[in-house]
C-alpha cells in the first residue's frame, strides 16, 4: 500500500453492498496477495487471508475482522421512468436527495436520488424531510428501456466522489468499514518485516450490516484463539454528547464493554501507552454493533476486542475519517501481534476466573 489515502480512495470507490461484495473483494485480494501466505474465499464470500507465524505447531491464531460490505439502496419498484427505493441496512433518508448513485442493473446506470418538490406535494406541511418511500432514483431513461435493465431487487451504490479535506481528512461513502480493511492492510505491511509466532487470519467479512454473517461463519471455520473486530465509531460532531465520544483524528478508540475481554482491553491500553499511540475510549455499554458481537460467542467463544476508528456522519455518503487514526490502528495491531506469545491465553483465562 503506497499510501493509506490512495488505497482507501480506490476501495471505497468499488461496489460491495451487503451480500454483493465480490467486486471489492477482488481488489482487496490483489492488495493482500503479496502480503500473506494463503488466500481463500468463504462459503458466504468473506476474504480470508492467512499469514503464518513462526511458532511451533500447532500454532495459535488471531483473527482480525474488518467488514467490506457497504450500506446503500435497493430498488423496490420500477415506476415508469423512475425507481422506487428502500435502504439497504440503515441509511438516513434525509441526506439522500441530490446524491449521485450507481444502479446495478443489467448494466451499470448512473443516476441521482430525487425528492418531489415541496411546493408540488399536497399535505406536505412544515417542509419536513420525505421518508425513503417518497424518494426515487432518476437515471434519465425512458420507461421501456428502464424496464429492460432494472428490476425490483437491483442494488444501488453511492457514487459520491471522495473529497480530500487537507492532508489528513477524507470524506466519502463506505468509510464504514473499508477504513478497517485499510488498517488491516497497513498492519499486514508492517508484519511483513516482523517475526511473529502466532498465525494471523486477516478477514474482510461480508454482511456485517445485515447479520454479522461473515464474522459468525469465518469465526466458526477458522477457529481463532483471539479475535479483534476493527470498525468505525461515531466521532464527536454536531448533536453528539460532549462526554465520552471519541474525537476524529485523536487516536485509536479502544472498545470497552461486554463484547470486549477485560484482560485484552488492559493489554491494549498498556501497549498504546508504551508506544505513545494517541488513544481514547469507545464505550460500548451493551451490543458493540460490530463483528466482535459474533466472534465472541461462535463455536464456544473466545476473548475478543474492538478497535474503533472515529468517524463523523455514519451511514451517510459523506463519512469523514482521519488517515492518522487508520495508521494508528494498523500499527497497534502489528505491535500487538508481534508481542503475542504462548502464555497470553492462559493468563487471560486466569483473569476471567479471578
Amino acid at each position: 500500500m503506497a499510501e493509506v489515502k490512495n488505497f482507501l480512495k480506490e476501495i471505497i470507490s468499488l461496489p460491495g453492498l451487503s451480500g454483493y461484495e465480490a467486486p471489492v473483494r477482488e481488489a482487496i485480494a490483489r492488495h493482500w496477495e503479496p502480503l500473506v501466505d494463503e488466500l481463500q474465499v468463504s462459503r458466504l464470500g468473506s476474504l480470508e487471508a492467512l499469514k503464518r507465524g513462526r511458532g511451533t505447531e500447532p500454532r495459535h491464531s488471531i483473527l482480525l475482522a474488518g467488514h467490506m460490505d457497504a450500506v446503500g439502496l435497493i430498488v423496490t419498484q420500477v415506476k415508469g421512468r423512475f425507481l422506487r427505493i428502500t435502504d439497504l441496512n440503515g441509511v438516513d433518508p434525509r441526506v439522500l436527495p441530490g446524491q449521485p448513485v450507481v444502479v446495478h442493473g443489467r448494466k451499470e446506470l448512473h443516476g441521482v436520488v430525487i425528492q418531489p418538490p415541496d411546493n408540488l406535494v399536497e399535505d406536505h406541511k412544515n417542509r419536513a424531510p420525505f421518508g425513503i418511500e417518497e424518494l426515487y432514483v432518476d437515471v434519465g431513461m425512458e420507461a421501456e428501456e428502464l424496464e429492460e435493465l432494472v428490476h425490483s431487487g437491483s442494488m444501488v451504490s453511492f457514487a459520491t466522489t471522495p473529497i480530500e479535506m487537507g492532508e489528513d481528512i477524507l470524506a466519502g461513502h463506505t468509510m464504514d468499514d473499508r477504513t478497517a480493511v485499510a488498517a488491516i492492510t497497513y498492519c499486514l505491511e508492517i508484519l511483513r518485516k516482523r517475526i511473529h509466532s502466532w498465525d494471523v487470519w486477516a478477514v474482510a467479512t461480508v454482511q456485517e450490516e445485515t447479520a454479522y454473517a461473515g464474522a459468525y461463519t469465518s469465526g466458526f471455520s477458522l477457529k481463532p484463539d483471539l479475535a479483534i473486530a476493527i470498525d468505525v465509531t461515531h466521532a464527536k460532531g454536531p448533536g453528539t454528547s460532549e462526554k465520552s465520544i471519541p474525537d476524529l483524528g485523536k487516536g485509536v478508540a479502544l472498545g470497552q464493554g461486554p463484547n470486549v475481554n477485560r484482560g485484552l482491553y488492559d493489554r491494549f491500553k498498556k501497549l498504546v501507552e508504551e508506544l505513545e499511540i494517541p488513544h481514547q475510549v469507545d464505550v460500548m455499554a451493551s451490543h458493540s454493533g460490530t463483528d466482535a458481537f459474533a466472534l465472541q460467542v461462535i463455536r464456544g467463544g473466545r476473548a475478543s476486542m474492538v478497535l474503533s476508528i472515529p468517524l463523523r456522519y455514519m451511514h451517510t455518503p459523506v463519512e469523514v475519517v482521519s488517515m492518522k487514526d487508520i495508521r494508528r490502528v494498523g500499527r497497534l495491531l502489528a505491535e500487538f501481534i508481534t508481542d503475542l506469545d504462548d502464555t497470553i491465553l492462559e493468563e487471560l483465562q486466569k483473569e476471567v476466573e479471578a
Partner: protein
Amino acid sequence: MKQLIKNLVETTGPSGFESEIRALVRAEVESYVDEIRVDALGNLITRKGKKSEGGKRIMVAAHIDEIGVMVTHIDENGFMRFTNIGGVNPFNLSGGRVRFVNGTAGVIGVESPRERGSVPGMEKFYIDVGARGKADCPVKVGDAAAFDRPFEDLGERLVSKAMDDRIGAAIMIQALKELKSSPNELYFVFTTQEEVGLRGATTSAYGIDPEIGIAVDITGVGDTPNSEKMDVGLGKGPALKVKDRSLVVDPRIVDWMVRTAERENLPYQYEILTYGGTDAGAMNLTRAGVPSTCISIPTRYAHSPSEMVDYQDVLNCVKLLLGAVSHPVTLD
C-alpha cells in the same frame, strides 16, 4: 392439495407446542422419505436420496409453529391475562377466538370496549373461556393457545389463521409426494419456534450442515388499499427473496432461482421485505455459512387471523421448489 392445506392450518401449534402438528406432518410424509427423525428442539427432519455426482446437500425448511398467546395470570373470576408468542398485533385481538393446546376454546375481550381511539396495549385484553371462576378454569398459567378460525376456501384464494407457515409445510409435503428423482441429498425439515427467533432452523441446520438452504415461508404484499409500497402481489407467482431483515440473499442464489422459474415457465416476482425474517436467515449463518434463500408465498393480512394466499401461487411454489431441488445446482 386444498384438503391437505385445510388439515394443516386447522391444527393448533403455537411456538414450542408443535407436537400435534408434527404428528400430522409426519403421517403425511413418512412413506415418501428415506429417513425421518425428530431433534432435541422438536424439528421434524426428513431425508430423501443421497448425493450423487453434481449433487448437493440441500436443506428445505418450513416452520410448523404459529403465533399465539400464553396465559400469565388468572383472576378470581376466571379471566386470563396473556402475553404474545411471536408477533401478535393487539389490533387483531378484540372479538377473536383462541384454541388452547389442551383443546379449550376461549374468546378475547377488552377492557372498556366502548372507548374509541387508539388500539389499547396487550395488557388491556383478556381471554374468557366461560369459567365461573378461577377454581373451575380448565387452563392454567403458562398454557399456550393459538388463534382459532376455520379455513376458508374462496376458490382462487384461501384464508386461514395459520397460512404462516403451514402453507409452506403444505408446499413441501406436496413437493415430496411429487418428487421423482434428484441428484441432491434433500433434507426437508419442518421446523419449530420460527416465530420466536428462527430457533428450530438454527439447530436443525447445524445438525444437517447443508450446502444450500431454502426456506419456504410467507411474505407481505403491496396490493391492498393503502398498503406499503411493496412490489409483490397475490397471483403474480412465487416471490424470490432478495432481502429481508435477516439476510441479503447471495446474488448467485437469486440468479439460480430466476433461472429455475424461467426454465419451468413459472411467473415470479422479486421480494424485498423491509421487516421480518425467515428460517433462511438462520440457515445462512450456520457453521461456516450456508448460502440460503426463501421461496416466498405472497400473503395478505400476515399475522392476522385471516391470512390470505392465492392458490395458483401455492401450486407454482410447489413447481418452483421441485424444479430447484430435482436438478444439479450450478452457482456462478
